[in-house]
């Protein structure tokens, strides 16, 4: 695999971004969608899909995002990829707001941020062969693979993702789900991006194939120095692949930390409930994690509860939770949790470890 082209470093504006800046950063991002009104009167309502999200992804890092459906995970992916302009807040790529870029700079940003989708089949055009699908990105960015060497480049790509290059004239329906996802990944990495946003990339795959694709993503990261935003609801896969993990609930990041912070010294009641819903995680904990079964369903993001958004389902909610929304409280060097009692919760684990 050729190393990612260095010409990107010299493009105007990107040449001298400080090395310590995160590769991508979101600052107070809000994304609200207007709800269709059946009558032209009455209050406008909004789905607050993201409500003040601050996250960063460093070069070569994998940030895992967990949470239930409707918590804003996929909106996060779309906003981060620049597919949607946030209602408020900024998304930075190498220190530059991606929504203010124009022209060549914007094109270069788009080359560097790529997406992998959940359903591999519906994200591929059924009328295009594998070769056409994988070479499509080069139509827009011919500078990455000049026409002369393109065939060889495609062959190389297919080998890299573990597909037989001799099958390049076949159509997506000739492949199994796992292989289709490999085609999707080949498209994602075709332009030597820096950032790969994976929105539930293995959820549609069978268990035995899932591990293959996770291994592939792992290998590609090492080989190409990619950064991942990895969204999944399979908690074990997220722990396996992530350096840091963020838990989301109703458009908010409620816990953020290294994978061991979030999994082994969980300091937020919602993350605890999520973990306890996975039997393997409960057991691996050594001294069995208590089983928490939350009551009810997540509230509607149109009309989120006042105070802490989780207080309606939280097993340890107090009076303060209904009135005041907690901030993200630092409970460790790299560990933050959005709960009034985060410090107490984190202390439990310290006690337990000491006992």
């Amino acid at each position, binding site marked *: 695999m050729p190393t990612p082209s260095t010409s990107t470093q010299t493009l105007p504006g990107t040449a001298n971004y400080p090395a310590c800046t995160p590769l991508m950063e979101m600052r107070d991002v809000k994304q609200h969608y207007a709800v269709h009104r059946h009558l032209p009167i009455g209050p406008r309502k909004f789905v607050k899909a993201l409500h003040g999200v601050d996250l960063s992804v460093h070069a070569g890092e994998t940030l895992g995002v967990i949470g*239930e*459906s409707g918590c804003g995970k996929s909106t996060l992916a779309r906003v981060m990829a620049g597919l949607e302009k946030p209602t408020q807040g900024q998304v930075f790529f190498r220190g530059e707001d991606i929504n203010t870029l124009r022209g060549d700079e914007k094109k270069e940003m788009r080359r560097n941020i790529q997406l992998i989708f959940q359903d591999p089949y519906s994200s591929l055009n059924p009328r295009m062969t594998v070769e056409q699908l994988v070479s499509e990105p080069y139509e827009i960015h011919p500078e990455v693979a000049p026409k002369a060497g393109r065939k060889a480049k495609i062959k190389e790509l297919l080998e890299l993702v573990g597909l037989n290059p001799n099958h390049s004239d076949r159509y997506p329906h000739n492949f*199994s*789900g*796992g*292989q289709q996802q490999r085609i999707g990944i080949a498209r994602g990495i075709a332009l030597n991006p820096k950032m790969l946003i994976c929105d539930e990339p293995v959820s549609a795959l*069978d*268990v*035995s*194939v*899932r*591990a*293959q694709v*996770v*291994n592939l993503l*792992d290998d590609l990261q090492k080989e190409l120095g990619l950064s991942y935003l990895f969204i999944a*609801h399979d*908690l*074990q*896969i997220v*722990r*396996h692949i992530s350096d840091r993990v963020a838990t989301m609930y109703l458009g908010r990041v409620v816990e953020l930390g290294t*994978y061991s912070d979030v*999994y082994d010294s969980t300091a937020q009641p919602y993350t605890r*409930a*999520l973990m*306890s*819903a*996975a*039997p*393997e995680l409960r057991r*691996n904990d050594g001294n069995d994690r208590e*089983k928490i*079964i*939350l*009551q009810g*369903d*997540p509230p509607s993001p149109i009309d989120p509860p006042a105070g802490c958004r989780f207080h309606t389902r939280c097993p340890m909610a107090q009076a303060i939770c209904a009135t005041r929304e907690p901030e993200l409280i630092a409970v460790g060097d790299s560990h933050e949790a959005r709960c009034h009692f985060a410090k107490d919760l984190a202390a439990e684990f310290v006690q337990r470890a000491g006992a």
Partner: protein
Amino acid sequence: MSSTRKANSMGIHQHANPAADAADDVLLRVKDLEVEFNTSKGVATAVNGMNLEVKRGQALGILGESGSGKSVTARAIMGILDMPPAHIPRGEILLEGEDLLTVTPRRHRQLVGSRVTMVFQDALTALNPVHPVGRQIGELYRVHRGYSRRDAKAAAIKMMDKVRIPAAAKRVNDYPHQFSGGMRQRIVIAMALALDPVLLIADEPTTALDVTVQAQILELLKEQQEERNMGLILITHDISVVREVTDQVAVMYAGRVVEHGPTAEVLSRPGHPYSRGLAASIAGEELKGRRLPAILGTPPDLLHLPAGCSFANRCAFASEACAASVPALELIDEARHSACFHTSEVLAHANA
């Protein structure tokens, strides 16, 4: 094909006889079931010699990937396969001794839907969108038990209470779209339990739900199954769901049961290379930073099943014998069966 069939008939059912069924309380016994689909490309063998039994009060998990035939088996038991294109060339499905494949349609209607019922994956499509949920639950009582409208409604409310739908009496006239995903699945479960079935088949009941809601539904299913001493077949691809709810597990691959036994033992000490691969591919804590032990390759094409063991081409233990003939499901330990020529090696690996 004939050689495979011969091998199938050497399955576990041989020592079974109807008298024994009564003695050990077997609710459902599936014998050598085969289901084929006629497609434009040829005949796809979805279920290929399936043997299974569920006892009273037992929760059996059927674990397998898509295309392994787990849902087709469930549909065959319920008699809701589309025939054609499906057809059942051979096999028996004995519900408390009566073969569901040969009973009269009238008897079939009496048994299926009341003695054995089913919960589907997608609750929204399982419910009729233009009728209130109370009427849909009540309909069961009206048709099967001849209740009056008023009694049926009262029974429906009672059932909704039982599956813990808050304010059931108020919500009985609501329509399916007014409920959340978890609540809808509770309503479908209420319908399935309404006529006090002896056996409940749940086909991926929580796949469409969030993990926290999944935990609620699984708890409800387990609790109802234990309270009613009912048989439960839980079909899923999720090992953790099987581990959470079931006592027995049958692992399916390419239309056959490849391993069958007590859940804890099968998952912790698998005797078949495929169950071993499945159990290992769970991303455990100790594997962090290392490669996941994936099962290489992909499941076989059901249109062209190999002559021998269908897992042979993905199997690390495979030998020549595996390509030549299909291993029968044999007793390997107390109450444990595995269909592999190399089970002893696989178990030795697990112990090492």
